[in-house]
């Protein structure tokens, strides 16, 4: 019982810290690229900015409009947050530093990450607001379309590693000597990252939120603590998808040439570094690219990414049997 409580506590702390690290990175990246003085210089060189942000949201009134479907509206942020936090359970920081080393780890991650869609959809619908409904519809179309390439890109890794356990996948990469992104899954990695960016609903895939056209999409009517939950979940999702991508494609908690006996000490640092590098690329893309149009987005998913990932699976399977 104590062990379960410790693990749940660890999950909550890891998820919150991941979100805060990525919030700082996003805000500081933006101000660095766009010369915004606030987050760079104000208050300990801008590092207490996210704390101030959280305090601000907690103080704000939690407004619930009269016309909304109350229970649905109130609980929608919870679905999104639960699906994000649960993902942290399977990502290993070393062979032993993992909350749950499931045999079907990858499958669990993909299944749980699809739960967040329900939160987004019900939030959009229950707000009784046309902007929210449009945002919800766009989010549904986008999340359904990009879940397929995300899953299909992972299949290549599973074929190559012969296991679905995330620890097993990393161990296989240690055994090979090189991470899978070098050992034949470069296409899979690119598809995974594009699809993951779309699942996070970040620029250039942020039509469901689209500040300039839909005000805030499915989040328009939310305020105070419920908005904060959506906001934190976005960064949690970004952090954990980057961590999963590092685990699947970039060798996870290990880098070649480091002694494997010491993995419990350097594992978390290595994984965090890889995650942060991927996160920084996403931040750089966010603050320098325009938004896709809705039809361009659907075309990219159905006509390019899904066929490419199917070909990737075929080639990987043939190579696996052939060599």
């Amino acid at each position, binding site marked *: 019982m104590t062990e379960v409580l410790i693990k749940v506590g660890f999950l909550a702390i890891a998820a919150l810290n991941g979100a805060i690290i990525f919030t700082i990175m996003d805000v500081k990246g933006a101000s660095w690229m766009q010369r915004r003085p606030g987050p760079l210089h104000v208050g300990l060189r801008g590092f207490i900015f996210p704390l101030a942000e959280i305090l601000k949201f907690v103080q704000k009134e939690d407004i619930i409009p009269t016309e*909304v479907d109350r229970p*649905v509206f109130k609980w929608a942020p919870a679905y999104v947050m639960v699906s994000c936090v649960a993902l942290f359970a399977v990502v290993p920081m070393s062979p032993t530093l993992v909350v749950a080393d499931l045999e*079907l780890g990858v499958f669990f991650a993909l299944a749980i990450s*699809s739960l967040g869609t329900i939160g987004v959809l019900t939030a*959009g619908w229950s707000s*009784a607001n046309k902007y929210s*409904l449009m945002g919800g519809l766009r989010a*549904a179309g986008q999340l*359904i379309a990009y879940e397929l390439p995300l899953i299909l890109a992972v299949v290549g890794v599973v074929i190559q590693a012969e296991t679905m356990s995330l620890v097993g996948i990393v161990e296989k990469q240690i055994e090979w000597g090189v991470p899978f992104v070098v050992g034949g899954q470069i296409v899979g990695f690119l598809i995974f990252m594009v699809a993951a960016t779309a699942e996070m609903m970040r620029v250039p895939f942020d039509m469901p939120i689209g500040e300039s056209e839909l005000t805030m999409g499915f989040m328009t009517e939310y305020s105070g603590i419920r908005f904060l939950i959506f906001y934190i979940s976005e960064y949690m999702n970004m952090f954990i998808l980057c961590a999963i991508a590092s685990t699947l494609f970039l060798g996870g908690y290990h880098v070649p040439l480091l002694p494997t006996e010491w993995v419990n000490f350097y594992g978390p640092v290595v994984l965090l570094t890889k995650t942060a590098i991927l996160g920084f690329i996403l931040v750089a893309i966010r603050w320098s690219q325009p938004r896709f149009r809705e039809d361009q987005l659907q075309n990219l998913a159905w006509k390019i990414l899904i066929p490419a990932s199917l070909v990737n699976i075929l080639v990987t399977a043939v190579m696996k049997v052939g060599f």
Partner: protein
Amino acid sequence: MEIFEIVTYFILLALLSTAIRVVTTSNVIHAAISLVFTLALTAILFLILSTEFVALVLVLVYIGAVIVLFLFGIMITRAPLGKNAELDNDKNKKLGAAISGAIFLLFSYILINGFNGNVTITSGSSTELLGEILLTRFIFPFELVSFVLLAALIGGITLARKDEALIDEDQV
């Protein structure tokens, strides 16, 4: 009684209440969300029976895809906020009760007779075994099912799309 058993009975009770709510509520979205909970609790039951693959398929396919499509469909067609009077259909209540009773009896008969009252729980993981059996012994039905699904998919697209050229050809 073991603590595990007590937890199982609580889950079954919750499952029953959410399942009843799915059919009694007159708000479509509330019904869909209750269905999410029903399926999630069923997945937990499968986990307790140590068939983790079935549990995760239930989450990925039914909650992640089918319910999302339900919600998407409801939102895209007409989404009345609040209660929908059309859903309170009193005329078919007797027929519905008769049919669900019959299905319940049939399922209980099959389940009890099929396993002869024994509850078989295999320990350890069944996923590897399942994969092997699916791709060796049951390869033909497995491929047949995927073929049927593909046919249904193509059929759905053909029925739904309004291709101007095709319509003209038919009229000629």
